[in-house]
């Protein structure tokens, strides 16, 4: 009965005449819809951000390799090392988006906004590690050599901390969201594997099936 119905379905589907022009138009629109890529401006922005990220990462590597002859060198280097890891991770994410023209997690606007927040965070952290922290340390050792007075550097420290705090909270939120997305993604991957195993198991048990409509090409 089931097969008869499917045969009737297949026969019925063959009854309609199709206007080739309308069909071609539909095919083109559908293809554009499925394989839609980011706008070229978005890709360009992502590409530029990725290039900026690469340049930043390279400069961080050089700074990590340079000796600072400083008592707080260890703190600065550890901070810069973590910063480098973050920069590499986000540069890869945004670089892949620029090359593939697709955004894996979320849509284009949140990604661009996220990129701006991350850039702010990285630049503030970098400024703090390179300029503010060493100078503050020097000031704490001797207040005589401060070229612009100690107040300037204390105000600078407070401002930088505020910026780091502001961008840091946003970045932490974004990182948490990316973590959730990855978690969701890995759950889907696991589910996919389970389904494929079940299908493979069923295919071994069942005789070959000639119903074309049920086949899903992989």
């Amino acid at each position, binding site marked *: 009965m089931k097969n008869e119905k499917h045969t*009737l379905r297949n026969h019925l589907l063959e009854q309609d005449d199709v206007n080739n022009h309308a069909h071609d138009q*539909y095919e083109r629109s559908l293809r554009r819809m*499925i394989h839609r890529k980011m706008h070229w401006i978005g890709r360009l922005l992502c590409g530029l951000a990725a290039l900026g990220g690469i340049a930043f990462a390279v400069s961080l590597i050089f700074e990590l390799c340079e000796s600072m002859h400083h008592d707080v060198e260890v703190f600065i280097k550890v901070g810069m090392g973590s910063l480098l890891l973050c920069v590499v991770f986000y540069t890869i994410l945004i670089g892949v988006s620029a090359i593939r023209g697709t955004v894996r997690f979320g849509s284009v606007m949140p990604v661009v906004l996220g990129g701006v927040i991350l850039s702010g965070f990285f630049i503030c952290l970098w400024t703090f590690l390179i300029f503010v922290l060493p100078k503050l340390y020097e000031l704490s050792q001797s207040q005589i050599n401060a070229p612009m007075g100690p107040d300037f550097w204390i105000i600078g420290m407070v401002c930088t901390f505020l910026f780091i705090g502001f961008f840091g909270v946003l970045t932490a939120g974004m990182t948490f969201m990316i973590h959730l997305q990855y978690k969701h993604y890995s759950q889907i991957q696991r589910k996919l594997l389970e389904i494929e195993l079940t299908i493979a198991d069923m295919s071994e048990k069942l005789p070959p099936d000639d119903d074309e409509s049920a086949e899903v090409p992989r």
Partner: protein
Amino acid sequence: MRLNKQLIQDELLIVRCRQGDRQALEDLVRLYEKRLLYYIRRLVDNEQDAWNILQDTWLKVLRAIDRLKEPKLLTVWLYHIARNTIMDYRRGKYADILRFQQDDLLPDIPDDTASMSLENAQLVHLALGQLSPPHREVLTLHFLEELPLEAIAAIINTSVGTVKSRLFYARQNIKKQIEKEMHNEK
């Protein structure tokens, strides 16, 4: 068992679609587009409109695929979206035609149209065109997908009793139409 396999394959397709697998999206489209087009064309006179509605249907499906929680409802969900798109497209015209009066509840009726129509797909196709849109709609869903009454009721937003009633009269009418066609051929 066959049905289970289909369900699992549907689930696999949906999971792959949610992953952003474009090939899976294409597979989903290829698997259902002919059936959806046939259904839409039974409710829309103009072929160009039918293609546009099908395209809009896929747009809605691609946007909402993440929200489909039950893969076993994929078929019902697709037809439901297609129907809503038809309603949006021709709001007023088709909505009035498809909004049907509540029919009387009827007892279960044996399905004698399936075996009769099997050899006469062309006649069934022509006869479908002679039915009223509500009858054409339920019978098309019945012939294409062999959906249970509850599923058809969910697609067309009506009660199971109404679907049962429409199906009963639709079968009677199509049988008459086919007999008339066969008589004319002789």
